[in-house]
């Protein structure tokens, strides 16, 4: 099909070239350009479902948050090696094809389409950005493709469509890590114990920044924590100089600040906040999921003694499964696993368990198997809530402490909370926000 179109299109001469493979390739290389080549490659690589299991990984591999993709890659590579060394999934070799979402919804959707149509993947996992995840959820349903989200944290992703105007949850989308809901439930409890009345936030200027602050306030009110909310700042993603925002927060003189800044934005912010005297003037700073940025960054940027959360802690729970995973990971990569590595690692095991249980890679059978499934991994034991497809993974908060043995920051005095959906729903009852838990 390709050769006729191309040849007619260019010189109309079919006789000369039509029967020679060699000529066709030379011709394509020489001038038909990217379109022809891509279509050609697509035909060769596409749609092979006969042997092996193919999963598509979608993370941020470039830009200010490329560290997330790098971490996830380590996680799924480790799982891939373990699984394939032990007979694969149902005896079949597993392959992971990774794509860069570039933290952009349009790019992510294009990559997903390509993974489904050209690579014929059996399932998808990944996603770092809440904004991207919200755009992807309806697409996963439309394409009838299971999507195991391992990082993106907006509650609306697992809040069933229709529950709230922003809800996009559907039967094909699952999340194996905690969300903003679990994280802020924990944050409100941390705030309750601190000697801080006035609270402020500085977060990225999109859904994640706003939702973090909304849920922090909602849980504080729901749990009866006696605090006030005084200032909020939302610098754009990839802001290069945070000074005006830092100054605005310092002017408001809050006792505590919660910040969901992430990736390189967080490290940039920390350097500038420090030189503006932030940590001398503000008693408590809560770094929502700060550990995901701190571990891979150079020089442990989170200041000791401040509070940070994570979606998975390498030391909690103190289970054999977690300890084995941590030790293997440290041996392989010479650093502690971040939550993004653990989430990606576990996604592969979830697919393994579901495919083996269902005895098939059929999408509809898979999503039925995931729904309500009980599973255990490094993060602990959890269940996918049938109502939402959200895993019952708790929020995890602790105090940032430098650990000599691992030569990096870790969380001390770790508190986990909010693994029960009922508990979270109750705490949100007075607000109009869905839990998606």
């Amino acid at each position: 099909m390709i050769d006729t179109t191309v040849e007619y299109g260019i010189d109309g001469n079919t006789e000369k070239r039509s029967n020679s493979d060699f000529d066709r390739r030379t011709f394509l290389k020489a001038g038909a350009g990217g379109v022809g080549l891509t279509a050609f490659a697509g035909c060769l690589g596409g749609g092979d479902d006969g042997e092996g299991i193919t999963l598509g990984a979608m993370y941020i591999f470039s830009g200010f948050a490329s560290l997330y993709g790098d971490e996830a890659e380590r996680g799924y590579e480790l799982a891939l090696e373990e699984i394939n060394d032990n007979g694969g999934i149902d005896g079949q070799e597993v392959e992971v094809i990774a794509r860069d979402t570039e933290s952009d919804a349009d790019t992510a959707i294009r990559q997903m389409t390509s993974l489904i149509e050209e690579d014929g993947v059996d399932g998808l996992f990944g996603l770092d950005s809440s904004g991207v995840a919200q755009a992807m959820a309806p697409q996963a349903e439309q394409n009838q493709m299971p999507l195991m989200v391992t990082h993106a944290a907006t509650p609306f992703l697992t809040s069933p469509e229709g529950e709230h105007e922003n809800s996009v949850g559907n039967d094909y989308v699952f999340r194996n890590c905690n969300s903003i809901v679990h994280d802020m439930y924990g944050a409100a409890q941390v705030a309750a114990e601190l000697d801080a009345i006035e609270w402020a936030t500085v977060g990225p200027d999109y859904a994640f920044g706003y939702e973090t602050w909304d849920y922090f306030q909602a849980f504080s009110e729901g749990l009866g924590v006696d605090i006030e909310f005084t200032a909020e700042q939302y610098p754009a993603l990839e802001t290069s100089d945070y000074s005006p925002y830092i100054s605005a927060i310092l002017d408001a003189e809050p006792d505590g600040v919660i910040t969901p800044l992430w990736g390189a934005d967080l490290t940039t912010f920390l350097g500038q906040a420090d030189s503006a005297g932030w940590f001398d003037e503000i008693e408590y700073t809560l770094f929502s999921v700060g550990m995901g940025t701190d571990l891979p960054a150079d020089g442990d940027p989170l200041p000791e003694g401040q509070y940070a959360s994570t979606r998975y802690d390498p030391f909690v729970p103190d289970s054999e499964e977690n300890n084995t995973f941590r030790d293997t990971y440290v041996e392989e990569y010479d650093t502690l696993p971040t939550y993004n590595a653990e989430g990606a690692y576990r996604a592969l095991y979830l697919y393994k368990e579901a495919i083996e249980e269902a005895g098939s890679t059929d999408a509809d059978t898979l999503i039925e198997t995931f729904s309500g499934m009980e599973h255990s991994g490094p993060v602990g034991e959890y269940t996918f809530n049938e109502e939402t497809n959200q895993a019952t993974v708790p929020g995890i908060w602790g105090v940032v402490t430098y650990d000599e043995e691992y030569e990096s920051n870790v969380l001390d005095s770790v508190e986990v909370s909010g693994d029960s959906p009922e508990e979270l729903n109750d705490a949100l009852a007075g607000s109009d926000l869905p839990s998606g838990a």
Partner: protein
Amino acid sequence: MTAVLAFVSVSDLVIGLSLGSRLFLIAVGLSLIFGVLGVLNFAHGAFYMIGAYVALVVTNQVVDNFWLAVIVGGLAVGVIGVLIEVGTIRPLYERLDGELDQLIVTFGFVLVIHEAVRFIWGSQPYSMDAPASLAFSVGIAGSTFSAYRLFVIVAAFVVMISLWIFITRTYFGSLVRGTSSDREMASMLGVDVPRLYTAVFFLGSFLTGLGGALAAPLQSVSPALGDQVIIDAFIIVVIGGLGSLSGAFVGAMFVGILQSIGPQFIAAGHIAIPFLAMVLVLLFRPEGLFGGIGE
């Protein structure tokens, strides 16, 4: 007005001036090049970004001397500017619709430079340390600033004054002013216009490269840097008057301070307010607040 002023603290002012200072170094080159050559250099923000990356490479990989890195950053961008001007913009001066062609060429370089930077350094941001001699904090009116931030403000004032003297008091300055007001007359009086154009393009590029290098310790350096600053620089030269040096200075400080106090009033106000100011200037004083070169 007093009610607004009451909210503007010393720290907002200092941060605003520091933001304004680096915007000035970009805007002044943009304005100078437009004023003399009539070329609106879209790639000017990308030049600024190159200045920052070059300074980063010099300090991290060549010799750990910040001041040398800043000078090399400026010079490297100056040379790149000259190559681009001589190689691709000069052939377009005589074209009938040359201005649009120039704009498209310089826009092309924005894309080329952006991708080249991504290719060479990747898309993750880098940070650069301030020089050790300025790595301390200064307290002003209860707020803390890094000494380097204050230094950048001083540097911008020094550049402004030097440039002023250079343009108004030197022979080369008189050639620049003369050529900017009447190119053909200058040419008939014996001014080597093409060479003057190249010299001015070098100067404008050098200044923005210097700005990028000087600002590197105050911000993260990533491929997004060029796009962020070029819009601000355009707003500044429109407010100040295309081709005006003092306009670029006042415009830059004005936009810097707006960006600094904006976040306290409305979300994203720091982005909207400068645009609003530009709209008002375009409506009521389309030539800008200040006149031409040397004003």
